[in-house]
């Protein structure tokens, strides 16, 4: 969690330097979902995400250096600079891809699970998306198919209350919860505190074992909150689509602070280790930024349009 937080903050800090010339959707405030689910899933499992995917990519073990290099459009980026922040991939750790068309990776993730089931591969796929993605019909088409074939997939929905500047009230009926849509497809679903990494871990663990044991898909709605602007490095509570008060209330429930306190209280963590961890991560980030800046400029506009002749 802390690592994700520090990476995102480093990106926010570096962004004004204009080296990262692409949209960035930061996960600050929502780290517990990525961290908790990653801990619950196996390294061999697969994952896909959408526009806000840095946290999912990192939690799954995605290469930090390749992430930052990609944001800088360098040849050593995870997409060789062709994709940018909105297109992340690291197949070596099972992160199969993220794209910014809302909802569009959901069926693709279900397709991964479909192939695993047909081939008898024991593996679970996690599909990460925001609550607005459930407004796309393709989510429902994917849920129906996953339910029909009892596919080993877990639908991980981060409900941060907004789609860009649009609150839930203009997008979804208030008289039903997001997760209930999945129940309509016969999929076990629940709502969980997305700022409590342990609650996230436990619910994800349950869902994963259901999937792994042939029990089919699960849908989990994690309630959480995005701290900064939808796209970009800044805070934007002042522009009027949400209140400073709402933000402050959620900030008090900072997943990292809460968890840290708990660990210290339980004696798992001393403030000394804490500092050590921080420093280790900061160092790693500095080196990753160096790596990224040292990356070559992409050449070959027409490369990769098609697979090389085999």
């Amino acid at each position, binding site marked *: 969690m802390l690592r994700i937080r520090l990476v995102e903050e480093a990106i926010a800090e570096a962004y004004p330097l204009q080296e990262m010339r692409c949209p960035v959707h930061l996960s600050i405030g929502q780290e517990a979902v990525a961290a908790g689910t990653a801990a619950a899933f196996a390294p061999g499992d697969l994952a896909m995400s959408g526009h806000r995917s840095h946290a999912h990519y990192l939690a799954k073990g995605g290469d930090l250096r390749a992430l930052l290099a990609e944001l800088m459009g360098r040849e050593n980026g995870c997409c060789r600079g062709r994709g940018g922040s909105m297109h992340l991939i690291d197949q070596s750790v099972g992160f199969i891809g993220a794209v910014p*068309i809302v909802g569009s990776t959901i069926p693709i993730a279900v*397709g991964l699970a479909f*192939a695993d089931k*047909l081939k008898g591969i024991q593996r679970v796929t996690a599909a990460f998306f925001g609550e607005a993605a459930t407004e796309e019909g393709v989510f429902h088409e*994917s849920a129906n*198919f996953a339910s029909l074939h009892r596919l080993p997939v877990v639908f991980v929905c981060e409900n941060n209350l907004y789609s860009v500047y649009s609150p839930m009230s203009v997008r979804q009926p208030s008289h039903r919860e997001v997760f209930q849509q999945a129940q309509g497809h016969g999929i076990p679903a629940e709502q969980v505190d997305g700022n409590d990494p342990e609650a996230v871990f436990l619910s994800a663990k349950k869902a994963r074992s259901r999937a792994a044991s042939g029990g089919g898909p699960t849908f989990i709605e994690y309630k959480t909150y995005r701290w900064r602007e939808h796209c970009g490095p800044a805070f934007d509570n002042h522009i009027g689509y949400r209140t400073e008060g709402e933000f402050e209330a959620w900030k008090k429930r900072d997943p990292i602070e809460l968890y840290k306190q708990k660990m210290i209280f339980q004696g798992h963590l001393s403030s000394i280790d804490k500092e050590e961890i921080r420093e280790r991560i900061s160092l790693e980030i500095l080196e990753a930024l160096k790596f990224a800046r040292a990356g070559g400029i992409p050449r070959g506009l027409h490369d990769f349009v098609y697979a090389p002749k085999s």
Partner: protein
Amino acid sequence: MSDLTYAEAIRDGYREAMQKDPSVLLIGLGVPDPKGFFGTTSGLLEAFGPLRVMDMPCSENGMTGIVLGASLNGLKPVLNHQRMDFALLSMDQICNQAAKWSYMFGGKAHAPVVFRMILGRGWGQGPQHSQALHSWFAHVPGLKVVMPSTPHDAKGMMIAAIEDPNPVVYIDHRWLHHVRGPVPSGHYHVEIGPLRVARPGKDVTIVALSYMVLEALEAAERLAQDGVEAEVLDLRCLRPMDREGVLRSARKTGRLVAVDQAWACAGMAAEILASVAEDSQTHLKCSPMRLALPDCPAPTSPVLAAEYYPRSGHIAAAVFQMLGRSANLDEVALQPGIEYDKPNPAFTGPF
């Protein structure tokens, strides 16, 4: 080598590809149905079982994403649409996702998936069951697009499409399904790229697509009666498109007609004319012509539908006009009539 219908040729293509590679999977609404998806899947369910010849929910966009995902995870799926019109629901997955998968991830992954779409026509298919929007797909880099017109190519291109590491849009015209022709047995590819010279000639180049190749050949017959030797090119592949092949013929004959059962504006006929026009080495003796659909949706009424589609007579008439020959247009141009709304006399509807 055996004599098969186009539909049987597609089925044989499926069978060869499925026998060779267990990761090949057929899916689509009615793919395992009792009528064998217009005869193009007959017997395959029995041969390969319900896990490789699958039906699906009526969810075109979702299923397109699902087969895309499966193709990223070791399978080679073929998604079958009974009409191209239905695939409009899945343009995001086909054009935003599948077409760009390799490029946007810097070549780290590829999507060996086939999107098969059937073009409807006649017998009241009407505005929403007979659209031919192949130029849309030809417009998009990252896709390959094929439209075979013979049983031979139908099989060889299906196998090539399935075994291609890239997403391929495979388009077959409903009126070709009953057409017979020689088909090699066993496994073979028809390369995705080169066009086919369907009939050599020296006076005029007629570039045609899909079913229109048959109308063009019929027109060439008619023209031959008056000593006009038309060269008929079966474009066969829209992306990549064999521009060199078109130019070679156009340079030889100096005359060009593009025939496409699709709308003219920004269609493939426009691309063919533009490709020749912009080539500084090619000089035509007269203005090239497009024979395409009238600029309106497909009407259902058989009488209007019969007027709607350009036929061999119109092609012949166009060529005569191009040559300044005062051929009696009424004589060459078939009269529109309701019998023109069905592929063959045996057909009694509905599709």
